[in-house]
C-alpha cells in the first residue's frame, strides 16, 4: 500500500486518482472583511446556539406544552381551534365570500394563489433589480399578504371565546361514569352540548365541582333558568329525576379513582 494522505481511486482500485483537488483557497482575493467559517465563526455560532438553547429550556419549563382531555368524538359541543399559525386560514374561511357556497374561494383559490405566487416569485418578478425599494409591485404584494395574514390572525384571536376554550378542554378527574345508561341516553343528548362533554362546563356552568343536591338539579332541569331551557316537555318526570340524581352524585376525584374517560 502506498503511504501518504489523499489516496483515492477512480472506480477501479488499480487506477489511482492523481489530481488532488486544491483544498485551500487564497482568501485574500475575497472583497471586504471576510472571516473563515471554521473555526472562529462556527464557534461564535455555537455559543449563540447554546445561549438560545438555555433560554428555550427555561421556556419549556415555565410554560409546559398544553394537553387537553382525551379525544371524545361524541362531544359535539366542543369549539375547535387549530394551532396559531393556521388561524389566518381558519379566519379567512369564516368570511362570507370565502365560506358556504363560496367555500371554494377560501379553501382553494386564496391558498392556491398564495402558494402559486410564492413558487413563481422568481419568474413573476424577473428583472435584475434586487433592492426591494426598486421593485415596488413585488414588495407591495408581499407586504399586503403579510398584512392580511397578520390581521386575520389577530382577528381570529381577538374574537375567540377564550374562556370557553380553556374550560372545555380541561383535564378533570371525576367519578362521572360515561358508560352509565343515564349518561349515555339522557345526559349526552340533552346536557353536554352546553355543559361540556364531561360536564365540566362549556357555555353552561361546570356540573362536577358545585355541591348540588338532587332537588335543586331537578328544579333547574324542569323549569330552566336564565339561558338554560326547561326540559319539562321533552323529558318525563322519571327521566328528570334520574338525571338529577346522577348529576348530584358527581364530584372530583383523584386520578387513580377517576371513572371518566380521561383515565
Amino acid at each position, binding site marked *: *500500500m502506498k*503511504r501518504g*494522505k*489523499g*489516496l483515492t481511486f477512480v472506480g477501479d482500485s488499480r487506477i489511482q486518482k492523481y489530481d488532488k*483537488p486544491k*483544498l485551500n*483557497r487564497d*482568501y485574500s482575493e*475575497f472583497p*471586504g472583511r*471576510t*472571516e*473563515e*467559517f*471554521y473555526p472562529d*465563526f462556527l464557534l461564535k455560532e455555537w455559543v449563540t446556539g447554546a445561549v438560545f*438553547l438555555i433560554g*428555550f429550556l427555561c*421556556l*419549556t*419549563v415555565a*410554560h*409546559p*406544552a*398544553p*394537553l*387537553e*382531555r*382525551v*379525544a*371524545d*368524538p361524541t362531544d359535539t359541543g*366542543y369549539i*375547535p*381551534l*387549530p*394551532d396559531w*399559525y*393556521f388561524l389566518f*386560514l381558519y379566519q379567512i*374561511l369564516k368570511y362570507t365570500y370565502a365560506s358556504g357556497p363560496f367555500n*371554494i374561494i377560501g*379553501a*382553494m383559490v386564496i391558498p392556491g394563489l398564495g*402558494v402559486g405566487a*410564492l*413558487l413563481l*416569485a*422568481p*419568474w413573476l*418578478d*424577473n428583472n435584475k*433589480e*434586487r433592492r*426591494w425599494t426598486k421593485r415596488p409591485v413585488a414588495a407591495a404584494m*408581499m407586504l399586503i399578504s*403579510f398584512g392580511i395574514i397578520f390581521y386575520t390572525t389577530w382577528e381570529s384571536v381577538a374574537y375567540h371565546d377564550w374562556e370557553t376554550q380553556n374550560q372545555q*378542554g380541561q383535564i378533570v378527574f371525576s367519578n362521572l361514569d360515561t358508560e352509565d345508561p343515564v349518561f349515555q341516553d339522557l345526559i349526552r343528548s340533552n346536557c353536554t352540548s352546553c355543559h361540556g*362533554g364531561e360536564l365540566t362546563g362549556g357555555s353552561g356552568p361546570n356540573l362536577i365541582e358545585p355541591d348540588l343536591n338532587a332537588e335543586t338539579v331537578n328544579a333547574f332541569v324542569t323549569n330552566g333558568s336564565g339561558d338554560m331551557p326547561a326540559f319539562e316537555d321533552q323529558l318525563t318526570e322519571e327521566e328528570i329525576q334520574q338525571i338529577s340524581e346522577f348529576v348530584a352524585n358527581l364530584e372530583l376525584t383523584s386520578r387513580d379513582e377517576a371513572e371518566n374517560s380521561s383515565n
Partner: protein
Amino acid sequence: MLNRIYDWIDDRIDITPIWRDVADHEVPEHVNPAYHFSAFVYCFGGLTFFITVIQILSGMFLTMYYVPDIVNAWNSVYYLQHDVAAGLIVRGMHHWGASLVVVMMFLHTLRVFFTGSYKAPRELNWVVGVLLFLVMLGLAFTGYLLPWDMKALFATKVGLDIAESVPFVGEWIKTLLAGDETIIGAQTLTRFFAIHVFFLPAALFVLMAIHFIMIRRQGISGPL
C-alpha cells in the same frame, strides 16, 4: 492518539476532503453580524436549521414513549408529561419548537424575498425553499393530532373537512389522510403518525440537502 487514529483512517479512505468541503468557506462581510449588526437577518436560515435539529432530536426521544393508537396515545403523552423524568422538557421543546421553526422559516423567507436573493441564478433554490415551507406546515398539521386530545381531534376534523371540500380530488385526499371516508379514528391516527414520522421527515431531509448543496454551489448572494 486521536491524531494517529485519524491518520490511519485518512490513509485508507481519504476523509479530509469530505469535512474540509463543509468547513472551508469564507463568511462574507455583509452577512456577518459581528461587522454589521443588521446582518442578523442572514441568520434566520441557520436558526431554522438549528431548530429543525432540535425538532428531530426531541421527536426521536418522544417516540420512545409515544404509542400511536387511540387507546394509549393520550395516556402515553400524559405519562410522559407528568411521570417521566425530563418528559416535560422534551415534549415542551418539541411543542414550542414547532412554533419557533415556523416563525424562523417565515422570517428567513422574508429576508430572502426583501434582499431579492431569489433572483437568477437562485430561482431553483427558492422553489426548493417553498417546498420546504409546505413540508414544514404538513409536519405541523399532522403532529397536532398525535396527542389525541380534544383540540387535536377537532382541529384535525376541521382540517380534513377543508381538504374534502376541494373539488374533484377532495374526497380522495381526505380518505388518503384519514384512512376512511367518514371516520376519524384509529386509522387516522396511525396514518398521521406514519406521515409525521416517516414520510414528511424523509422529504424534509432530501429537500434540505438539496437546499444546502445549492447554497454552497452558488455562494450566498452578494451585498445589495
